[in-house]
């Protein structure tokens, strides 16, 4: 009985922490917008990939099933934050920007493997390597979406 009496406040504390953390998510984002504005610093992580990682080639580059498999994996693991069409939500940035689409497959694989733990992107090395390469194939197949492309492109 005493244990349950102590469990209840713990559960309340647990919920309170959840609420506080949830409230603190993306404080700079508009509350009404579903997708974030284009935010260059978010993509700076891509520049941190070591040269050796950037130069890695996708071993599934010529696998005809890789994009289809990657699409399923994306829906299962990534769409919740990046959106079903990868155009971003207030939780995570668009993957259809020039920065992402111009990044080498090795860079994207490195980012998937290491995550950006301090910025809420989890480590995805729990997916086996071939599945991460399948995801990279799918992401690269998406191309740049029109609105996202406008902001970063240099204007004449």
């Amino acid at each position, binding site marked *: *009985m*005493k*244990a*349950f009496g*102590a*469990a209840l406040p*713990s*559960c309340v504390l*647990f*919920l309170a*922490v*959840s*609420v506080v*953390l*949830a*409230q603190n*998510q993306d404080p700079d984002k508009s*509350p*009404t917008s579903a997708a974030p504005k284009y935010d260059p610093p978010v993509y700076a992580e891509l520049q941190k990939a070591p040269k050796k990682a950037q130069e890695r080639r996708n071993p599934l580059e010529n696998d005809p*099933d890789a994009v*289809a*498999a*990657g699409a*399923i*994996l994306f829906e*299962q*693991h990534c769409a*919740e934050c990046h959106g079903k069409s990868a155009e971003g939500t*207030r*939780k995570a940035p668009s993957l259809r920007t020039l920065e992402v689409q111009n990044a080498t497959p090795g860079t994207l694989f490195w980012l998937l*493997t*290491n*995550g*950006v*733990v*301090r*910025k*809420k*992107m*989890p*480590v995805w*090395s*729990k*997916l*086996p*390597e*071939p*599945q991460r390469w*399948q995801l990279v194939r799918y992401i690269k197949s998406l191309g740049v979406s029109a609105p996202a492309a406008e902001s970063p492109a240099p204007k004449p």
Partner: protein
Amino acid sequence: MFPTCRLALFGSFCLFLLSFYSAPCAIAQESPYFVAYDHYLEEPGNLEIEYFSTFGTERGGNDFHAYWAEFEYGATAWWTTEIYLDGQTTFNDSTVFTGFRWENRFRPLKREHFINPIFYVEYENKNGADKILKEGEGHDVESDFLVSNAVARSERIHEIELKLILSSTFKGWNFTENTLAAKNLSNSPWEFGYALGASRPLALKASAKRCTFCPQNFVAGVEMYGGLGDRHSFGLHDTAHYLAPALAWNLPSGWALRISPGFGLNDNSHQLLMRWGLSREITGFGSMVSRLFGGRK
């Protein structure tokens, strides 16, 4: 079973139903381990609701069925926090609520390394009838469970448990090593234990078609765990050890099933610990709670 226990289990059941009917779910990529931990934390904002059972044999006493509900929340990408509610039924004896645990796991390093450390801190508030055997520690042996529930539950245990989790992933394999130190906050010595695990998905490439029985949805592994004595008598004497093959099945519907028959390796161990579990991950739980309290839509 006394009413508060019923209330706790009923609450857990309601949350489980909620997750089944209304909440968006994500396919989990669960490891098959029951005792060992790897270095993967819950995704931020997600809540995983889990139910686990352990059926154990008892030589010279009554077999038992211990169970726990687990609520695992990804507070950030580097911090996962969990609440456990534990209970057990000893055959020919009774059913008791045995207590709760609050567990936290922290990832200190930003990037993935060959060996990835995780710090684990847990507070346990339980009674002496606890039989979930979530870890092997100290000189805990099979004969400890011969005491009847009525007597065992009168003992209150407040315990702090620390673990260093060292985990690696290589060519699809996960190898993990957990070192445990636990301290009963009454005047008891530090106790020690270990858990080792290895696992691998049955296929490394994902199928291009949606499927339930594809080999990549299954993760097979094995874990070994046991006690290492205490501060005054460190070592393997009078300790129990187990070896347990394990299998996890991550269904596309978002559910994950796990099963693991564990076998005692010496005379101090239960001969069989049959474990199984069911879990479901709710995505965006943090945001749902936030909205409940008037946060952003």
